[in-house]
């Protein structure tokens, strides 16, 4: 019994630390991620997302999609194929002001966040 309790506590502790990568600050339009625990490459990618994506929509939309696995507007699954499709959509949007490198960085970040949220 004691072993079981210890195991359960360890699992719970592990789950908590896994979500540290998705630490969310603020609510609604002001919602954003705390990138302090991100790897350096993802910190740079987050900076691109933070600056570029908010031209058209809040970060809340992206964060909710990652947390729930469902794109909030379309109601469709938000998985790795969806992140690339959204990236391509933004790349091709005439006024998105995003080049291919920036879109790739954004897709990489979303995939990283999806992986973190699945842990």
């Amino acid at each position, binding site marked *: 019994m004691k072993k079981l309790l210890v195991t359960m506590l360890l699992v719970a502790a592990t789950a908590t630390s896994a979500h540290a990568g998705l630490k969310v600050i603020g609510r609604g339009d002001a919602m954003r991620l705390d990138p302090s625990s991100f790897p350096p490459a993802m910190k740079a990618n987050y900076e691109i997302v933070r600056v570029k994506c908010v031209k058209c929509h809040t970060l809340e939309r992206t964060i909710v999609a990652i947390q729930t696995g469902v794109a909030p507007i379309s109601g469709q699954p938000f998985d790795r194929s969806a992140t690339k499709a959204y990236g391509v959509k933004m790349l091709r949007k005439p006024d*998105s002001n995003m080049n291919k490198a920036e879109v790739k960085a954004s897709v990489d970040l979303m995939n990283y966040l999806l992986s973190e949220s699945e842990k």
Partner: protein
Amino acid sequence: MFLRKHTSAVMFFLGISLAPLLVPDHADAIPAFSRQHKTECSTCHTIYPELNEFGDAFLKNGYVWPHKKGEAAKGTEPAGNEWAAISGLPQQIPISLTASADLAYDEDAADGNKLDLSARSVTLQAGGSFRDLVGFFVTYNLYSQGMQRASALSTPAENTNVPPGNSPDLDELFLVWRQAAGTPVNVKVGRFEPKLSLWKKSNRILPVPSYASTTYRVGLSPFSSDATEDGVELNALLGNRLFVAGGVVDRNGGDRKDGYGHISYKIGGTDLKGQEPEVDLEHDSVWDFLSVTLGGFGYWGQNGEFDANGIAQNVNNFRRIGAEADILYKRLHLKGSGSFGRDSNPDFSVLATSVDSRAYTLEGEYYLGAPVNLVPLFRYEYLNAGYGAIKRFTPALAYAPLQNLRLSLEYTHSIAPEGTGNIAFASIAFSL
């Protein structure tokens, strides 16, 4: 004196100078579809009302978000919204209003009123779907400039500073039975713009004037291929990139129905179901940004002069055949449209004289994008409706300080058999 001589130039530069003052803190788009789907106008529009690729897919999907398949039937409504799922009613009243005010300067105005400021139109629109099974769209013209001056002059008591409007008019009202009976065919019934052109006349950056290739008339015949008519249309998306449409139109006074057909194919880019293309994010290809849509259409109809019983006589049999191309590459958007026609008796004369007609429109737009949401545009048009060639050159600028607000400045130089003409036109339009 300077102002009188150079009014169009002053308007132009005043507009340019003042435009940056209107830059907002954030976009705030609110018309009906935006409210319904809780998304920004730029999801479907470049500079409203022109549709982007996704907007075109939304339109072709009967005003239902692309990729959705039968969700309504699965009972996905959240608790408390059961009434909406059962009744099929939209949860918000899906109504929008679009208004525009224009300033026109015509050096050669027939009535001598060179500078004309008037509210041009106020339009109510409604659109949406019932449980994703049936889409609907309504356009109701509450007011349009029309023949304001003529009516004012004939009735001195009405000759006020406020121009009277035309009678309210139902421009569009149709239902689309989406993917009828499990087939890929959508059935559209009501009053609508027959699907001929690649572009609906109301979905262009500069809706006024409309393209010569789709709006021209011949003789006394009131027909133009972009006019709304009562009819039934079947259309379908085949293989994600081929769109076909065909329909019949019921014209008053005729002893037969008009018929038409459209076919278009899109190469590259977002497909007609709104799915993004495969793009290699590591390597470049010209197809990353290029899309080409080619279309063709035909219309066969009959009209005439109504007698006292409302029956058409001195009948005019007419046809229009057209070909179009739409090319999008990054921020550059090119459109080409050509239409050829033959009218057997466009003047409804006892002695019929046939007229061949042709018209072309070429338009190029370039989106400067953020932070300057400005689109320089150039349009060239050629029209010969049997009475000599008319050429029009239209440079223009459109600016969207907000996603639901558009300012535009146009200048049109026309060369016609009877002489040249110059018109400067400034317009502000908004939707809510």
